């Protein structure tokens, strides 16, 4: 099995050293480069084509969210995991919209990082439990204050199944293969799900799934 090739992007050397130590203790993980800012990260991922990029948000020159957007748009096969100190929802949604597939908090990096890399190599999304908790709590509070009904109840069992797979990061084609459905049927289901939940994009759908505790 080929090792997973990882790029580290963080402006703190101590942080990068710690991450490298943590990752390279695993035989199947390989850190192929380190970047100290967003621009460097984009350049390195262009030349080295890493499987996974571990990305900080607050960096000089170009921040991690913008770097993520550029990396994902140039190389969709590269999975970006945001590793940040920010636990606020606005950062998470920006990161997801930019194309990140995982969001980790730095305080729990040591426990979550390996699980996140594993999830990403399997094509799934990953969120630090602390992030999931915050998002779910916010969502519950919003529901409570608005007195709105839970839109999840509107979904059929098949739609819930597809929602989970999509939220885990699967493509329409993968979902179709897994469930033995036609691509067209999956796309129709997806449209219905977004409509019923009043969502507009797959990142929003992922966030919704995290909030609902459907994926972790």
């Amino acid at each position: 099995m080929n090792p997973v090739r990882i790029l580290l992007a963080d402006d703190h050397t101590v942080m990068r050293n710690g991450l490298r130590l943590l990752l390279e203790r695993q035989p199947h993980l390989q850190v192929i480069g380190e970047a100290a800012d967003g621009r460097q990260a984009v350049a390195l991922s262009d030349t080295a084509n890493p499987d996974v990029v571990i990305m900080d948000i607050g960096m000089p020159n170009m921040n991690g969210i913008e770097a993520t957007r550029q990396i994902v748009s140039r190389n969709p096969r590269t999975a970006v995991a945001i590793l940040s100190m920010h636990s606020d929802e606005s950062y998470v949604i920006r990161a997801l919209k930019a194309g990140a597939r995982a969001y980790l908090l730095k305080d729990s990096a040591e426990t979550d990082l390996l699980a996140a890399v594993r999830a990403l190599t399997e094509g799934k999304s990953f969120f630090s439990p602390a992030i999931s908790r915050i998002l779910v709590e916010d969502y519950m509070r919003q529901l409570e204050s608005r007195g709105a009904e839970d839109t999840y109840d509107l979904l059929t069992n098949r739609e819930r199944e597809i929602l989970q797979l999509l939220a885990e990061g699967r493509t329409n084609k993968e979902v179709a293969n897994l469930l033995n459905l036609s691509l067209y049927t999956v796309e129709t289901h997806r449209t219905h799900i977004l409509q019923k939940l009043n969502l507009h994009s797959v990142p929003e759908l992922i966030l919704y799934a995290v909030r609902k505790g459907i994926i972790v």
Partner: protein
Amino acid sequence: MEPEETKDTVVFKRSGQSLQWGAQLVLLASFGGMLGLMLLAGIDSLRALRQVQSRNVQIRQTFLLRNRALEEIRSALYQSGTFTRDYLLERDAERAETYRASLLKVRGEMDASLFRYSQSLDAGEQAPFSALQARIADYWKVLDPISHWDAKEKLARSDAFMHQELFPRRATTLEIADRIGAVNEQELNNGDERLKTIFDQFRFRLGLMLGITLAIGALLAVATTRRILHLARDADLRYRQAALAQGKLKELSARLVEAQEQERRAISRELHDEIGQSLSALLMELGNLGAVAPGDAELRSHVESIRKLAEGSVNVVRNMALLLRPSMLDDLGLVPALQWQARELSKRTGMAVTVDADSVADDLPEDLKTCIYRVVQEALHNCARHAFARSVRIQVVQESRRIRLSVLDDGQGFDSTRTRGLGLLGMEERVTHLGGRFQLQSEPGRGARLHIEIPLASHPVEAVL
């Protein structure tokens, strides 16, 4: 700062009041004096005119009265002559007796006239009047004997009596009466002279008073004009000084706000990026340390307690940094920062805060972004602390040339024409410094509506990220 300000105002008011009192007294005295003089002059003129008029009437009346008395005396004299002659020449005793009765009547009339005249006698007339009285008495004494004459005596002596006694005496008496008439006329002229003197005195007094009044008026006019000009110059100077000081204060406060914002950002970044990141790295290294010696239980428990401490510190540092200046404002833009703030406030207070800002770009100019964020922060703070609102609606709309913000709450409201705290003042100043407009409407019991509008034209879009 507030108590000092109050003290200054009080002192200023006091000195202003004493100054006003002095000026008021002077003005009151001057104008009062001038008006008093004019009043006096008026009263004096009326009095003098009335005096002159009554004197005039009196003089003329006296003159006429005496003139008439004299005329009566004269005519009585003539008549007495005539009646005497008729009496003497009349042969018929009965008719002669009627002439004698007429003569007696004339005498009585003359006495009455003489008495009337004597009532209004002047000092200068005393001598001639006494002479007249004596003459008349003498005249009548001469006439007395004729009533005792018989017809023969009458015939024999009457001619001689008339020409030698009666006519010469009548002529001298008339002469004296004429002299008295002249004196009377002289008196009339004297009266006119005296009137003229009174009139001249009055004219002099009136002229004097008018002169004094005019002089005081002129002095007053000069003094008040100078004073008013001085005050106007003073007021102008003070106004300009105040305007200048106000401008400087505004500039200073804007700079202070800017410096505070920069300071906050620097400290927030430092906390977040340096201390926070170091603590995160520390946590990471702790993980590595645990992996190096997996079997050592004592080491693991120490590592665990260090991890707990470090995690606590990370949270503290993160919250402090966010409170100082939320990193979203610089990393993500205005809208995520507003949304974060709304969520935080909802979490803390249970107030429902909605943010509607779909049209707002991420790359707003730095000062504008900060201004709107801080204004919303202050408004939300007020809603939660003072208004006890249940829901707040924040709306930001970006147009081609301006950006508009409104914050509406359903709290208890306040009288926006009177209540203006420091927080509101700060908001308004931030907004006006960027050339914007600030409007806050509220009434007790009807919530509050804050509207601000800031032009975009003067703010070229800067790349923030």
